[in-house]
């Protein structure tokens, strides 16, 4: 357990001292959302209708940006090889990294989402449902991201390949994430989507450390 906490605190320290890494992600998230009104025109009703989708796309893209620092720097400086000799399983190291990735690449986005809600003319109720849906769904994105980063860590230009690999996996998260926000199909359907989203997140967060650890072990040989 102390090993798990060591990895977690190291990752968070590195992110916080990273010279604006977190701020960059947050700005990217807000800017992606902010350019949409310019592209689709200033129709307030239309914007409010597509706002949930825009928020989810912005969050998805911003989380992809943070992927390359997940395993890449550790492999470059030899830390990854030493993780394999550590007293805790590699999957525990990855689990700590998934959690740190969520804390440093997803939580700040959720905290910044009021800015997007304002820009996209969301009403209050939709906003709270958006926050809930992001909280439920982003852990799954973090887990999928860890798998993608682990599979491509030994590959050159892997940081470009990882998003392509995990985009298809992330489609269900986007579908149910947006489904949990928009009440178009009645409140029951939104609730069902939210529950499914939570189930998906739980499953991915539990399984992804093992899958990613396996991918790293194979890639390093």
């Amino acid at each position, binding site marked *: 357990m102390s*090993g798990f906490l060591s990895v977690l605190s190291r990752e968070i320290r*590195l992110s916080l001292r990273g010279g604006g890494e977190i701020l960059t992600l947050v700005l990217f998230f807000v800017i992606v959302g902010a350019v949409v009104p310019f592209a689709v025109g200033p129709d307030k009703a239309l914007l409010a209708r597509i706002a949930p989708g825009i928020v989810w796309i912005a969050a998805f893209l911003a989380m992809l940006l943070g992927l390359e620092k997940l395993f890449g720097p550790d492999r470059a400086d030899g830390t990854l*090889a030493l*993780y394999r*000799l*550590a*007293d805790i399983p590699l999957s525990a190291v990855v689990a700590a990294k998934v959690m740190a990735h969520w804390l440093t690449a997803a939580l700040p986005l959720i905290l910044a989402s009021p800015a997007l809600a304002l820009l996209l003319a969301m009403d209050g109720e939709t906003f709270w449902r958006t926050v809930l849906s992001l909280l439920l769904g982003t852990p799954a994105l973090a887990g999928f991201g860890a798998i993608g980063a682990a599979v491509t860590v030994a590959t050159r230009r892997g940081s470009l390949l990882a998003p392509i690999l995990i985009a298809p996996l992330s489609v269900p998260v986007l579908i149910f994430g947006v489904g949990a926000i928009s009440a178009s199909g009645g409140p029951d359907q939104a609730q069902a989507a939210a529950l499914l989203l939570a189930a998906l997140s739980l499953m991915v967060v539990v399984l992804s450390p093992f899958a990613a650890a396996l991918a790293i072990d194979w890639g390093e040989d």
Partner: protein
Amino acid sequence: MTEGQVHSPLCLRTFALGVGRGDTVLARDIALSVPAGSGLLLRGPNGAGKSTLLLTLAGLLEPLEGSVVLEGHDEDFGPAFHHCGHRNAIRPRLTAVETLEFWCGINGNAAMPVAEALDRVGLGRQAKLDAAYLSAGQQRRLALARLLVSARPVWLLDEPTSALDTEGQKLLAGLIGDHLAAGGIAVIASHDAIAVGGLGVFTLEAGA
């Protein structure tokens, strides 16, 4: 319990070991036997497979042939191998103390307080300094301190003297000497002389 029994009686053996990268065999029929309290110096020209052999001993690479056995190692004690490679696994933005505390946390078996280990390798005054500001030799000393904070019976050192000054080389010899005196095992790949008494020598031929 005397000092010599800190580790259970150990012996690192290899049987007809073949090592290499991918399908390329670099060295084969390696039969080593390194008992507790003794060290082995790996010699050989560049590209003879010294680093690959060390990685294979550590279990980071699969042997292409044969096997590596560490006899007499208690599994409950945790992992047996410390590997210290070319790369120091030191990250900018973490201080020397934080780096060592991190390694102590994930490697377990705390053997020496972090501050004491830093003093031992001569980095006591740089403890609070960002590790990226350390010179190459100091970073190597920090990597060696990692071996001190967690106790493991077998040290696998790959070119440990690189970037070290003469003081540092004496320090390294002292650390290895203490480790062997406490019943440890060390396998060292180096082109330099290591001033430790009783080191065996194993030479890898190029293109074997």
